[in-house]
């Protein structure tokens, strides 16, 4: 863990006698390793470390009795702050339905998250509807329908359409017709570098003018996290991030990286495969995890 690495550094330094300002670099080296091993993006890690150095020097950490503990406290507070302390707050539409679009890379967990969101919203007293706008993946529509049935939530689907924008438009109309107050759109996984598919997503957004555009990202994502988040954000103006598969043992540096580079709030984390496995994001808990 980082705590033991830092105390190891302190132990070594203390043997050499009085600590000096340049000894801060020894701590920073351990922090860099910890962040990279946690999948924090390199550029984000460098910025973060620069900030830690600033505070370590400014707060005369070297003069403290236990500089390793002091540095750890600084890191924890900076991390928690960066991860964001905003509570989960949806952008409810003044005129229903509130429209939520889920997007992201292939296999990131969008379809399952759509169902999980519906369950969460129902607990908040909402009456959601799901829309199957992935017309590309084999049995994607069936997958959402099966999930919808399992959580007693209507699913708008068109098995014959090849036009996701048209399905989206009709889903919204149907949603209003049935007096459902939230529409959750599942979309096909796509690469952030796939121009036609990113354009398709932008077209869905133009058509629906959604209240929320949420990137569903795999919490095990490595160094490409910032590239992925930045491209989706610049094309769509994301309103938030959801990280799936946090029930594994990934350290989750992608969470810090995507949050840092977009400034968008982390709304939820997926904690399992079941439709009730979705939790509002808790920055403090995640900060601990990233530090190992």
């Amino acid at each position, binding site marked *: 863990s980082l705590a033991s690495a830092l105390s190891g550094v302190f132990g070594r330094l203390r043997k050499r006698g009085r600590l000096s300002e340049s000894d801060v670099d020894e701590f920073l080296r351990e922090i860099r390793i910890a962040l990279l091993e946690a999948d924090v993006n390199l550029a984000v890690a460098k910025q973060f470390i620069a900030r830690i150095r600033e505070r370590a020097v400014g707060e005369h950490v070297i003069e403290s009795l236990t500089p390793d503990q002091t540095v750890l406290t600084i890191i924890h507070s900076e991390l928690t702050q960066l991860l964001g302390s905003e509570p989960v707050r949806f952008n409810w539409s003044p005129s229903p339905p509130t429209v939520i679009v889920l997007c992201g890379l292939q296999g990131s967990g969008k379809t399952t998250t759509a169902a999980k969101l519906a369950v969460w919203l129902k607990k908040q007293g909402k009456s959601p509807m799901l829309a199957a706008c992935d017309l590309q993946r084999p*049995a994607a529509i069936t997958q959402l329908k099966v999930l919808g049935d399992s959580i007693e939530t209507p699913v708008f689907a068109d098995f014959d359409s090849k036009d996701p924008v048209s399905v989206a438009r009709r889903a919204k109309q149907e949603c209003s017709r049935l007096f459902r107050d939230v529409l959750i759109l599942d979309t096909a996984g796509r690469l952030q570098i796939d121009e036609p598919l990113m354009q398709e997503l932008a077209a869905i957004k133009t058509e629906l003018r959604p209240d929320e555009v949420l990137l569903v990202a795999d919490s095990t994502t490595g160094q490409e996290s910032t590239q992925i988040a930045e491209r989706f954000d610049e094309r769509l103006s994301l309103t938030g991030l959801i990280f799936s598969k946090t029930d594994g043992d990934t350290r989750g540096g992608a969470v810090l990286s995507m949050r840092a580079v977009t400034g968008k709030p982390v709304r939820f984390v997926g904690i399992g495969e079941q439709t009730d496995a979705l939790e509002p994001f808790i920055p403090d808990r995640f900060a601990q995890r990233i530090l190992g």
Partner: protein
Amino acid sequence: MLGRGIVDEQLFDDLEDALTSADVPVRVVDSILESLRERVRADRLRDAEDVRRALKEEIAERLRDARSQLRRAETAPTVLLFFGVNGAGKTTTIAKVAQMLMERGERVILAAADTFRAAAIDQLEIWASRVGAEIVRAQPGGDPAAVVFDAITAAKARGIGYVLADTAGRQHTKTSLMSELEKIGRVTEKALGRKADELLLVLDGNTGQNAIRQAEEFARVMGVTGVVVTKLDGTPRGGAVLGIKQSLGIPIKFIGIGEKPSDLKPFDADEFAEALME
């Protein structure tokens, strides 16, 4: 990436950043750069281009493996078991491997042993019909091991050369799910009279350091004879496999480069090293 001509400390810093940004584990980056410095000294390399080429060769060398070929059993059917964490690309990879085998004139049975996830069987059925493979399936919620057993029995009875078994995605940290996978392995062994011919870990190319944890756990519980790295048509460079190869010695068999049945390439260490250093 390397515009400068001379070989200096800045060059090595740039290379360190490039490897790190490719998801190569920290310890492995250090070890690679150490070997590289040795090469630069021994071969008296003076030009950044030569150093770049040496680095590519260093990476390729670490990944090259004679066992990257797909195994073929002496006694049919050859059984390939696919497993890995959720959403890695197992089901789609099976469609791709089936297509590849059928293009070689083989007959293939797909075993729909993901009996858990919504529409998993539907998804594999569509792939089976698209590539022209047969499928053995059961009711959703059924015993996955029984599906694999039935598929092997059918293949033996009808002289079909290959069984490709799909399994449900699972986190390697979930003991009960890992025991379920282990049971699938044991039942396969019972049906076949030997272990599955390939135990293939499917790994999402976007994954960071957790890829190594996944490989460790699946290797510990099941044994892993090969890795398939998917989604390399995206921007990730898959450097975590250098960590897997270094600590576990598992060869990479294929890479996935898209969502169509033809989007599968046999692993090529030089191409992989080239792409990693992009």
